């Protein structure tokens, strides 16, 4: 695969990127911070399975849609027409902190929904023009139900999940496979310091599950897989009960 990865400097994106270069896939990194991108690129190069593999980078910020087209253009030039776009980037903060910081709420909502959707649109156009490809986007189980600890974050991911679902329905016949990844609680820098619930996963495990999902062209991937079951139950709970529990 020729993969463009937004979010590969951290967490699940980093783990997924390592898995991809370990399996000799080509990688192009997108991210906000040029210096950080360069460090991650060297990491992927050394960990890569091929001796002379180079990983190139371009700046792409979900808060700045004007960066999307040039970044994907650069990726196309470096990889020679990419066939897979993976977006793991997103913003997060616990509900309490968000409620106290409306400016950050605005940034988060914009990055997780508007920014991500606009980037997907740009990637979709490019891939459809050459017969299709795979679009892998990290949403969250937080978007499945309205839940007390993730009201705002969950809302941004709920919108994203619906968009991705629609996109998959609309374009799969034309060759664009959309994989919506819904991680449960994963122990990464994003969730560091938060209470760790049962069924928490780690980034490496998630990466393996996601790669399998990509290979099998699954429309929805829960990771760790047990969260498919957990969320199936949560989706069935009546509102009365959802209002009571802290989950």
């Amino acid at each position, binding site marked *: 695969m020729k993969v463009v990865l937004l979010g590969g400097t951290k967490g699940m994106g980093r783990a997924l990127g390592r898995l991809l270069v370990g399996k000799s896939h080509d990688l192009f990194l997108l991210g906000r911070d040029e210096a950080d991108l360069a460090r*991650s690129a060297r990491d992927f190069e050394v960990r890569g399975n091929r001796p002379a593999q180079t990983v190139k980078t371009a700046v792409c910020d979900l808060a700045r849609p004007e960066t999307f087209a040039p970044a994907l253009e650069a990726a196309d030039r470096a990889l020679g027409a990419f066939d897979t776009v993976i977006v793991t*980037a997103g913003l997060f903060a616990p509900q309490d902190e968000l409620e106290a910081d409306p400016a950050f709420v605005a940034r988060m909502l914009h990055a997780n929904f508007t920014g991500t959707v606009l980037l997907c649109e740009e990637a979709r156009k490019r891939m459809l023009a050459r017969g299709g490809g795979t679009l892998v986007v990290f949403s969250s189980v937080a978007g499945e139900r309205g839940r007390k600890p993730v009201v705002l974050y969950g809302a941004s991911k709920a919108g994203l999940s619906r968009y991705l679902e629609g996109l998959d329905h609309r374009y799969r016949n034309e060759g664009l496979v959309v994989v919506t990844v819904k991680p449960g609680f994963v122990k990464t820098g994003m969730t560091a310091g938060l209470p760790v619930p049962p069924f928490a996963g780690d980034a490496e495990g998630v990466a393996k599950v996601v790669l399998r999902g990509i290979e099998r062209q699954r429309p929805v991937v829960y990771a760790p897989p047990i969260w498919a079951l957990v969320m199936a139950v949560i989706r069935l709970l009546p509102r009365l009960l959802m209002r009571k529990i802290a989950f």
Partner: protein
Amino acid sequence: MLDCFLAVSLRAQWSILTGWGHVPVAHARELRSEDLPGLTAGMPLSRGLGRSYGDSSLPAPGDDVVAGSTLADRILSFDPDSGILRAEAGLSLRDMVWLFLPRGFFTPVSPGTQYVTLGGMVAADIHGKGHHRDGCFGQHVTSLRLRVADGRIVDCSPTKERDLFRATVGGMGLTGHILEVSVRLKRIPSPWIVYESVRVDDIDAYMAALKEAASTWPQTVGFIDCSKGGRHLGRGILIKGRWAEPKEAPPQPPQPKRTRAVPFNLPSGLINPLTTRIFNAFTYWKHWSRVRRGVIHPEAYFYPLDKLLHWNRAYGRRGFTQYQCLLPNAAGPDAPRRFLELLRAQRVASPVCVIKDHGPESIGLLSFPCPGVSIAVDFPVDDRTQGVVDALNDFVIKAGGRVYLAKDAFTREEHYRAMEPRRLPEWEAIRRRWDPEKKLRSRQSVRILGDRVEAVLGSPGAGAATGAALPGPTAAPGPSLASVPAVASAVSTAPAEAPLDAAAPPPPRSRTA
């Protein structure tokens, strides 16, 4: 269900932090981030994979947070010509081993587990089975990047800021947060190990065989059955190894071994004198033939205990300690025998007793090894443990030896100072230069160096004044034995106490995935 979720969330807010031995226990949070330079600003201590046995990776009483380095694990460069690897401090040895073994490189010095970080290997200046040949890990480190106490980021190496480098290698993280490490990896002829193991009858035969093997084998290690006394005192297995030449090695490369895990804490007391005797006799007689030779998987050779994850849970909730001391050559050839006799007199039941041979001292000022032998024993913690360690320390001081800080949880300040009359003052002078206020500190540094906690409370890194105001074990200096169960019960019975919550520092503002 409601209660279940509440309990989970509140307990985890104030998680329990321990070393590998589960003793002592600290109420503290480990904050992790990929951005180690950002994370360590103002932090009192860094922690890696938490494999030090005692309290080296625990915050000082009064501090309630440590910086966890494990997410900062990027490789920054690797030069196959020189073998020099540069990486962030949180890179695990397991990653490093399995990335570079297929390319013909291995860590220049390997400890007994892969679950350590690069930063931890420097901070403890770890040694391995090949110490008599290869020295300590720090001797292969070409440069370090540190965040020192005043907030600056400083590079040091054997030639640049040499003092800081010497104090940091083996300095248990007390001179600065280790951010990046450059180390020269060792080229290996094949990824397999040729070994020869010998069953020996007693400690004198063991010591003779160990010293003799040192001249011909690059790696030596031995396991002693220290539950046997009399003429079987110190009977054991001596294992010698070297990297296989390509023509000796199996054609296929080794794969990481499957692991199992001890799923939860087993009942305390499962490891007792009786089970220890049975276990030791079994291990000894399993090696029925006098000499065994063969080619072996590198993981089975270097990391036999890694195949059982969380093996420390076998000791139960009360935990265990490892006592590892160095007996220098000057103490005489019978020092190990006298040490084993003392162990028996103290009725210490250790299922594992390892005796290794050591060469010259490392570049690290507080590094553990020097010419002589080291003895390591594991035993469950109980009310007698402090007394046992005191008695063993008295012996070690008379022998001119020292203890290994990465293992230690019970040594008293006066004992530690008596072990390090020459090197410790020099190290402390360097520390004073770089960190006069002792902003960087650990529970261990309070215990063995007498760092005064009150003096630094209220500094930006402390963030835990309320923690120190709490009565009881959290504020008590040192891991007094009595405090350990008290801490554990305080957490399990009252997870939702208000003062604990009030002391929590605000988590980082924005997070990105």
